């Protein structure tokens, strides 16, 4: 019996050794850089002006003379009651870069191939490709553009801590904010961003906009606060109840109660639908 057990054990051992010798070794798993945890609800810090401190403090935007004059014209029209130079008033999405003012909170969902920036404002999603792709031959313009990102481990601790993004192919019309600072009609804007978590409760996006309406690249640093209390997500469907209508160059206030288009500026006629023929 003893000799039989020994032979069996030797046979088992030789089998194991043979198996180990004939099976190619598993390659050692490369050290995997970890993705950061940027989950949660991030709320805007600072002004809805593109300059987070507001233009009174930060100074005027670096507009070319043509676009500076256009901004003044829009200001004169707004003083009369016309929502000029502010495309989202008709429910158009803010687009890039204005969406990053985050009039409403955002959520960031990170996957290896794509990082999604979800903005409650118009329920817009920015899709940032981080799969190493190159720019496509043709980009179909979209309000948020086409974004390619790259993760960086700036402090070398084995965890990504900065996402750089370049965005092209952005559709218009767009404005930086509601003060009549609009982007160039050619829609050839290029936007570069660097997003970092600068402390436990603060995310920062350094945003540089290159656009023909500007005399130089315009860099702002927008920050977002991690909400920890009363965190609720509320859908935002602008078409549900928007009362602001643009017909040609005229703006109207849609009066659902009377079925009329009411004027927004003095001297503008009220539009009353003709009665249906009998």
């Amino acid at each position: 019996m003893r000799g039989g057990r020994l032979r069996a054990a030797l046979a088992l051992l030789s089998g194991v050794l043979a198996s180990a010798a004939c099976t190619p070794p598993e390659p050692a798993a490369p050290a995997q850089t970890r993705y950061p945890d940027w989950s949660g609800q991030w709320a805007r810090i600072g002004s809805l002006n593109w300059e987070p401190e507001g233009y009174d403090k930060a100074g005027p935007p670096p507009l070319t003379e043509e676009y500076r004059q256009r901004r003044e014209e829009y200001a004169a029209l707004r003083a009369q009651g016309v929502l000029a130079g502010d495309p989202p008033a008709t429910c158009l999405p803010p687009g890039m870069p204005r969406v990053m003012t985050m009039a409403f909170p955002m959520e960031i969902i990170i996957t290896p191939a794509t990082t999604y920036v979800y903005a409650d404002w118009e329920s817009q999603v920015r899709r940032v490709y981080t799969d190493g792709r190159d720019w496509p031959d043709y980009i179909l313009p979209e309000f948020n553009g086409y974004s390619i990102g790259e993760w960086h481990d700036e402090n070398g601790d084995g965890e990504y801590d900065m996402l750089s993004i370049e965005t092209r192919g952005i559709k218009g019309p767009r404005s930086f904010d509601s003060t009549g600072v609009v982007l160039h009609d050619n829609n050839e804007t290029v936007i570069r961003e660097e997003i970092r978590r600068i402390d436990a409760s603060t995310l920062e996006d350094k945003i540089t906009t290159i656009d023909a309406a500007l005399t130089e690249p315009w860099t702002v640093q927008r920050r977002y606060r991690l909400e920890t209390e009363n965190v609720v997500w509320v859908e935002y469907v602008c078409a549900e109840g928007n009362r602001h209508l643009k017909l040609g160059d005229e703006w109207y206030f849609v009066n659902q109660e009377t079925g009329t288009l009411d004027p927004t500026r003095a001297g503008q006629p009220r539009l009353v639908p003709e009665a249906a023929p009998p």
Partner: protein
Amino acid sequence: MSRLTRYICLAALGGTVVAGHIARAHHSTAIYDNEHPVELAGTVVEWQFVNPHTFIVLEVSNEATGEKVVWSVEGGNTAGLFRRGWTPNTLKPGDRIIVTVRPLRSGAPGGNYSNVRWSDGQPVEPRPANGPE
């Protein structure tokens, strides 16, 4: 303003600081006369808890003439209000309220509301957000 003042039940605020939220999110408030807010007291016809802005449809009576005018006044967005406890049930048809309104520059009976109070002057302070009441 002359047409507006016919419907104003309470005195215009003049330079008084107005407490309360001014709706400003997805667009400018340029169509409203922010420099000349008025106080409107009336009866809620409809409370529209919708985006991009909530609306109060408010019937306002001119006490002198008896003439009734329906105002459509725009306020904050649903997300901001819901976080402060407002819901589609916060106001109901027939509620008597007072609001501060920045009127349309055109003189049409529309505007931008804030500082919603019950008719006795007490502020409308909904419960914390926890679904419909």
